[in-house]
């Protein structure tokens, strides 16, 4: 149905345009006209947010724009979610995310969380100042596919290496991928500590995570 396609495109555009009211209105249309809610989320809201992430990577958009886009996206999502049937979407890849111990700067982590959530991952947020052992424990507990660690400070970045070591010790290393990011982090650092991935921006984090999950099915419980 062409109408449906147009509706999704409009939703996507409204997210990119940071137009929360319009996103909400379009979400109402989705519900009223009984369009597939799952498709609307995937091809409308998430699609828009991914475009916003792309613009962020291209330096067109900055943190405020990305957050306002996500506000619009979540406003739509809150309306649509109750109309999802239980089994839709299948099982998602699980990500444990947090800021490493000793650091309380979490804006970067929150952006990555938004982008991964939009990108179809299931997020478990441990917050900030999180000890290495807590990441590993949580990952084991929920059978996570990915641990995502962030820090803004040079003085705390070595704690990330600790997470990798602990995973090895717990024999979880081959089950869980580790991705790292933040101000002082570089690709070289990620490689040195044996992490699986690094992204310079929140927008790029989704592709890194997807690349790591490529072919892998979500861990079954």
């Amino acid at each position, binding site marked *: 149905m062409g109408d449906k396609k147009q509706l999704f495109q409009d939703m996507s555009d409204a997210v990119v345009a940071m137009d929360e009211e319009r996103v909400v209105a379009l979400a109402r249309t989705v519900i009223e006209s009984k369009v597939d809610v799952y498709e609307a989320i995937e091809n409308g809201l998430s699609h828009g947010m991914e475009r916003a992430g792309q613009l962020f990577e291209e330096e067109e958009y900055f943190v405020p724009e990305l957050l306002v886009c996500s506000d619009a996206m979540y406003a739509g999502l809150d309306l649509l979610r109750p109309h999802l049937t239980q089994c839709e979407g299948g099982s998602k890849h699980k990500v444990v995310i947090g800021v490493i111990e*000793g650091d309380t700067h979490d804006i970067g982590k929150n952006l990555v969380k938004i982008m991964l959530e939009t990108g179809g991952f299931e997020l478990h947020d441990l917050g900030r100042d999180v000890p290495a052992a807590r990441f590993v424990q949580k990952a084991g507990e929920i059978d996570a596919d990915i641990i995502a660690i962030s820090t803004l400070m*040079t003085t705390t970045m070595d704690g990330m290496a600790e997470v990798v070591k602990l995973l090895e010790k717990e024999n979880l290393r081959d089950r869980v991928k580790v991705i790292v990011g933040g101000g002082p982090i570089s690709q070289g650092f990620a490689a040195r500590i044996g992490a699986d991935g690094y992204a310079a921006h929140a927008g790029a984090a989704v592709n890194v995570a997807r690349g790591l999950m490529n072919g892998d099915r979500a861990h079954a419980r």
Partner: protein
Amino acid sequence: MARVTFFPANVSVDVRPDETILDAARKAGISLEAPCNGTGKCGKCKVTLLGRNGTGGEKDGIAVAACQTKAGEGRAVELTGEWGKESVRVLEAGTSEAGETDPFITKELSTAGPETIILGGGRGLGRENGDTTGFVYGVVVDIGTTTLVATLVDLKEGKEVASTSALNPQSLHGQDVLSRIKLASDRVGLAQLYGLFVSEADRMIGELAQQSDIEKRHIYEMVYSGNTTMLHLATNTDPSSLGRYPYTPVLRGGYLPLPRGGGPGIAEFASLYLPPVISGFVGADITSGVLATRLHERKGITLFIDIGTNGEMVIASDGRLVASSTAAGPAFEGMNITFGMRAGDGAIESFEVTKEGELLVGTIGQTAPKGICGSGLVDIVGELVVHGAIDRNGRIATNGNGRLPGVFKGRLGLKDGKPVFALSDSVYLSQADVRQVQLAKGAIRTGVEYLLRDAGVGPGDVDEVLIAGAFGYHLREKNLLALGLLPESFGGKVSFVGNTSKSGGIAFLVNKGYRTEMKGVVEAVRTIELANYKDFDRTFVNFLRF
């Protein structure tokens, strides 16, 4: 072992193959700048590998980051950057409202014979032969993260005799405070940074003594004024707790012994005094600033801000002081900026579009622009915002907007697909640079916001705004407002008080009464941790806009 040879210095050093060229340079005693301490982020430690594989030969080679390149089987390296000959402009002057002379160190003639007794706070510290009562000196070292300013003070007269400044040699091993904390978190690194400070301070004191024609042994007291981390590093104290939340300092200020032999070569019984430290990120330099401006005695609402990497600030409401610090980052010191540099020769320090539509670009030393320093960066971004070349969201306008001033024509363009503003043939401001400025100014504006809220006042209620710090002195109020680094209603209320870390430090030296007074003042200062506010994220993000 692998041999690394540096040209044009022609110095060789043997290192393990897995050590980097930066490691080799440090071993060889070559001052290769590595502001990010070798994390591979800043790219400022570029060197050229000579010949194929960098083993020597042809002149042309490839440029690499020294910190990311292993010594391998040996290398021949050409130093390309500004190694070892950096010029830095340092502000030495500062406001001081300090009063009379009543130093901690005094002298009296012995009743027993031709001998002079040196007293510290009235207690005997040592003796000297003959009558030396005419020679009583002290030194203040303002220990900045980037620069050191040493000042010789005549304690009898309560007057500055001479002052000198230099690059803090530690900055070659990590420009920002966190890199240095990290380096000093093991004994070897701490000893290295401590040693660098002590020998440079010693050299500066020697210079001051010689220039003023006094003997070094007649210097009896040192005051170190600086941020909390710098005080730790200058006293060989483990700073690692400052690098992790809740950033608890080991030192709180007060008297410390100066190590024999290890300290600057002054009187052997000389003492060291550190002004009281407010918190892990609000240091003795800010206490000195409070003293120099008598902030605690001012009527009404006064805001004291040190615009730098840590953006320390104190709000005084009729004597009640609340302090905070913000992670502004080193953008204003030229870090993380494509053509960022310190305030040395060739740095663009001012930028203005005149009423007549002319473009004035000022560089230090009137040379061709090599880069952009902090004040230049504030000017450039401020002017571009005012004239519409940067929009509210921080985007550099691409060509075609008819309302831009004519002088911007041909300067706006794309570099690798991303918008830039050209400042000269080779120097430009990138979109990513604007983002860095947004983060820095957003952090400071957010700090101001929470201090105002804490005091229960709005921006319009502020009576006075005092901007301290060497960098602050070169700023212009209008561009701080244009950037939104300060609220618009601060217009006309901003004054630049200069290096109050130094002037306050001198006050501590010449009048011991201030030590007791400020101990009480600092104990009553409340510190707020911005990250603990629920809406901190949103507030900060809102202030990222221009």
